[in-house]
């Protein structure tokens, strides 16, 4: 096959296209931040996960130590069951606690992990028992109003009982 002067330009075009794809995958997407290392799987049950999504980060002291694998519903305990892939090599005590936090005011939700004091470490298949649900604004306001009402209306409530 003979060469033509177009070859250079076609080659450059394909290279530019490939570079653009690479840019999208690495710089705009999160291909680099994927952890390909080994993981061990633990579960945690939450009363309410709020807006937590699969692939959300699991952080401890602000450092990503794992990712949310999947989220399901446990119809025995009526709780959300969150499966977490922890990076192997990072060990946490068995009585560590997990809570759902939000990064920034409108940011995405992630799981914050606080180490406990147990001698034993979490292993694959274990469950994190100490959990704290996501903050739901309606519940917070509801509790606040209820407390206010209870504070202000104690005599009235007594009167109503009569």
């Amino acid at each position, binding site marked *: 096959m003979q060469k033509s002067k177009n*070859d250079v330009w*076609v080659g450059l075009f394909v290279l530019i296209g490939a570079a653009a794809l690479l840019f999208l995958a690495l710089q705009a997407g999160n291909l680099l931040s994927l952890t390909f290392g080994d993981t061990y799987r633990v579960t945690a049950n939450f009363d309410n996960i709020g807006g937590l999504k699969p692939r959300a980060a699991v952080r401890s002291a602000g450092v990503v130590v794992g990712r949310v694998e999947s989220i399901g519903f446990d119809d025995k305990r009526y709780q959300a069951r969150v499966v977490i892939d922890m990076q192997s090599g990072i060990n946490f005590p068995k009585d560590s606690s997990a809570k759902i936090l939000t990064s920034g005011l409108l940011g995405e939700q992630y799981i914050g992990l606080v180490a406990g004091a147990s001698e034993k470490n979490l292993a694959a298949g274990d469950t994190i028992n100490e959990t704290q649900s996501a903050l739901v604004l309606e519940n917070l306001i509801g509790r606040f109003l209820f407390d206010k009402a209870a504070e202000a209306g104690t005599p009235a409530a007594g009167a109503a009982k009569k």
Partner: protein
Amino acid sequence: MTWLHPATIGFAVRARLADMGHGARLFLRLLALVGTAFARARLVFDQVHFLGNLSLAIVGVSGLFVGFVLGLQGYYTLQRYGSAEALGLLVALSLVRELGPVVTALLFAGRAGTALTAEIGLMKAGEQLSAMEMMAVDPVSRVLAPRFWGGVIAMPLLAAVFSAVGIVGGWLVGVVLIGVDPGSFWSQMQSGVDWWYDVGNGIVKSVVFGFAVTFIAVFEGYTCQATPEGVSRATTRTVVTASLMVLGLDFILTAMMFSI
């Protein structure tokens, strides 16, 4: 009221069905000719050069300006809610998921599709295609297939260039001009854009659009009336049909990909 006559309606329906069947058969033949086309890769590469390289300028400049506008518009809307840091995420998601493939396909239909239709149509009007058939050269595999596959290769690359240049444009306006924090611009983008779910599906879209636009252009040129007026009508039809097809397919693909 001749148009209500059953024979007129019947003829119209039969003509449409014949067109569709003709189109489907040509499409399957072009798909089957992938081996033949790449056995003479020179022809395909020349078409990639003609359809891809020469479209790079319009696609790149459009991408840059779409990115500029997204940066400005996104900033003014987001800063009302005090979340201007999410600008990077907004620009990247809108480009990678929607605007990159769709706008590129529309530009591609206008820049490259019309050229294809006019070229093939004029070959037909000049009876070059008939002459090739007389010499036992199949015009579908010699003329149509390289153009079709060249367009199918060029389209996703152009869409990727559009999205990448657009993100750079959004960055220029958002970070350099307005002064959004560059760290949160990129980190919000990276935490929000999934490389397969968003970028990959955008590429799938652009590949589908590449097939659709190039096929419509080639088909309109090949089936046009062999007159100057017929070629001009076919060129117009290419732009109209391809644009509508891209928008319709985009709705279907988006519903399939992102609604689950």
